[in-house]
């Protein structure tokens, strides 16, 4: 029933937007091959919008965005034949991927300027304020916040401190404040031809002179500030429950994922960073045990 008449003038701009929206929907469903076709149709429609059209500039902007999305689409998608009954209900494979070793990090040592192997300090966030614990820092127990976003400027010449500062400034806008007593460090995580960087900031709060809670802020970005690979996961659990699970969505152009957690003295947080193929890149067990 496509033979529409009457008030039926079609616009290429709207056709492009429809194809783009369907491309986004299919990307979310990980149906990348169909998404690619939709994005190509969107691009073709935007290209045909004439300069005289009031939608010309918007069409060009959308076209550029779609072209970027096209570039970032994964080459392969999961085959629907993977759900053949014999495969689906077959016994689990006997060979499992080797488990990554867990590295323990006692963050209370950072307060005494002692770092575990592989971690490097970020001077800009090291000893800016008093070393005493912040009194009455009003956080609920087990407070969790997380998300992901993009940094505006990217420069390979930026120091880790400058990159972290930029991210924190952004997060500050979102209402995430980092107290001056926070200590920060980072470690690099190799991932194929990419190199990831995990920033960790910590601080503690006390009540009546006693340690009450400790906070951990994690930021997972790329070494040179470029967008993170799609499917990259940052997960934090308290050994029984997953508290945070962040994943880089395709075409999102996210340059970092973050999570902020607050725990009591007897709590530990297990942080997992995994690639899109489920390969675990690192397992870190954070605690805050005063010595």
């Amino acid at each position, binding site marked *: *029933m*496509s*033979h*529409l*008449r*009457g*008030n*039926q*003038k*079609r*616009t290429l701009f*709207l*056709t492009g*937007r*429809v194809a783009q*929206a*369907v491309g*986004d*929907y299919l990307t*979310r*469903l*990980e*149906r990348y*091959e*169909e998404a*690619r*076709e*939709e994005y*190509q*149709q969107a691009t073709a429609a935007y290209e045909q919008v004439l300069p005289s059209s009031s939608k010309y500039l918007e069409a060009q902007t959308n076209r550029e965005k779609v072209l970027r999305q096209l570039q970032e689409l994964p080459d392969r998608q*999961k*085959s*629907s*034949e993977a*759900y*053949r*009954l014999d495969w*689906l*209900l077959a016994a689990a494979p006997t060979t499992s991927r080797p488990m990554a070793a867990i590295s323990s990090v006692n963050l209370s040592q950072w307060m005494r300027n002692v770092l575990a192997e592989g971690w490097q300090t970020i001077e800009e966030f090291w000893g800016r304020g008093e070393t005493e614990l912040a009194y009455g820092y009003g956080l609920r127990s087990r407070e969790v916040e997380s998300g992901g976003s993009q940094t505006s400027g990217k420069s390979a010449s930026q120091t880790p401190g400058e990159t972290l500062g930029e991210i924190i400034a952004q997060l500050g806008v979102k209402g995430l404040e980092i107290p001056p007593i926070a200590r920060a460090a980072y470690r690099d995580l190799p991932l194929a031809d990419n190199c990831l960087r995990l920033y960790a900031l910590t601080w503690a709060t006390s009540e009546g002179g006693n340690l009450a809670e400790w906070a951990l802020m994690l930021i997972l970005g790329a070494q040179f500030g470029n967008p993170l690979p799609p499917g990259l996961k940052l997960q934090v659990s308290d050994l029984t429950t997953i508290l945070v699970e962040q994943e880089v969505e395709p075409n999102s152009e996210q340059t970092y994922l973050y999570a902020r957690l607050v725990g009591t003295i007897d709590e530990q947080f297990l942080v997992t960073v995994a690639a899109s193929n489920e390969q675990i890149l690192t397992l870190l067990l954070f605690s805050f045990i005063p010595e």
Partner: protein
Amino acid sequence: MSVSQNISQRQSLTQVNRALQHFTDRHELTKRFAEYLNDEPPPDKILFFYGDGGNGKSLLLKFLLNNYCKYFSTDVWQQLKAKSTYELVDLIKGAKSSSPRRKYARSPLDSIIQKLKRWLERISGKQLGTNAADWQWNFQSVPAVLLDFEQQPIDEERPQDPFYGLLMLRGRLVKAFARWGYQLNFPLTDYACVWYLQQKGKLTNEFIAKLFPASELFLTGGTINLFKTVLGAQQLAIALAGSLPILAVSTFNVISKYFGKDLTLYLRGRGLKPEDLQKITQLDPDKELIDALPNFLAEDLNVAMQRQNAPPKIVLFFDSHEAFWGDWRGRGEAKYFKQDEWLRCLLAQLDRSRIVAVVAGREKPRWQEAAQWSIPQDQLELKQVFHFCTKDARKYLQEIGIEDEQLGEQLINYARLDQGLVHPLYLGLCGDIVRSAYSQGKTLTAGDCQLMSESQQKLKILVERLLKYVDEEIADAIDALCACRAFERELYFQLGRALKFNPSHAAFDCLINFSFVWSLKQRGRDWYRLHPLIRRLKAEENRQMTGDAHAFLEQYYRERENIAEAIYHAIFQDWRRGVGEWLEVFQTATGEGNFELCRILEEIRKELSF
């Protein structure tokens, strides 16, 4: 007298599909279908009927469904095969069973009886069992279902949808089995469907009652047992939340006679443990489970057909295969093949020795080209459905009461195509014209039918000519109803009152008696739709009445909070407004993860090709 006196009586035959009643021709195709049911070994293929729109494919499927789903004993079948095609087809159609379920095992005793019969024939010199009455007991009815992909999607009845289409098929199979006294259960499918619905937040009492009506409660009992086995009673209560009471009632009624240990046996027979089923719950409902569902249905059906008390065969009919694409072509291969992927997945895995699959569509399928769930060409039997030959066209006209030979020849010539064959839709319209004229006291003669022969104009001219011989309110009603994807009596009256075309029961009965109006059962009620070619023709005419009908229907569906259907009618009125709203709703649905609504909107986009 050019028109039979019977016409006026036949026109009063409302509530039946007149076209089906006067089905003509297709003997070779009918015989081939019967061979799929009865030949040993059976053809290990999918039967695919293809041909132009309006040439009777849908009618053929309904005709086979109603008359030819019969399984004969080996000897009877051999005797039938020895007859001419025409005889064979007539005999099968005439064969009646007085019992809804007569097991006709092809047993050694049956063989002895048939040999004895042949011996008696030899010594008596007379042929036994050659008329239809003699075949009364000699077949077993085969459960059969039909899924028409062109059917208007309403609520959960959405035949093209990878989830709800399968659910429709499942529901119809259960009813077809029950009709002939068989039991059918879908442990994997039901488990997966209930889990999907639970994940979608749709597992409510109301929804369960709708999807698993009282007649199917034993299935729900089966499902609840599955969940009990896998999840344990406590988790089951959590998983099923509000739907537990109704499920519990059904379980109470059936648990003693159904499933129970059957489930354990089923799993053991399949080499599975209850824990294996948990893998289903680990699948993402929109990304994975939806792709896995046809596998479950195929497996459940295959297993069901291996049971001791299973019917000898079942038939799955799929009509209007082309509706998966509408006019929406050239949008990319991945998109093209995804549309009917669930159907290919299902068909590819069915046990074709027991399950006969028949598909009809305008074009030959390109299934062998698909990257996923490809079906090789050698697993398909393609049969072209041609237009009528002259002999069958004459027979059709006689059937509908047009006995004047000269008038008949004139109508046949008009409905004839370049290749000499007669277009069934055009011929049906010719018949409608004669019958409508007769009902107004006018008797058409050959001289009245001097019509031009440009084939591309024929349909338009025929419809115009028909409307000349019907009351004004019926002509207006046709203009209005062609805006509907499907309609029923109540909607017709609402439209009529709003658009002031004086609706009446008599006019409605007349309308649904036209050859181009199809009846269908939807949501347990009688629904109708105009032939798609007529709808297309009327849409192109862009009449005021049709536009007003779209405006009414948009409002009608908005009041019922059926936003997708409202948008469908909005697009017909104003493309930019309608598509703009489509985009807004689609983006919101994507953002909210409401992928079911996205699928509904995608179907509208396909049909309206934007």
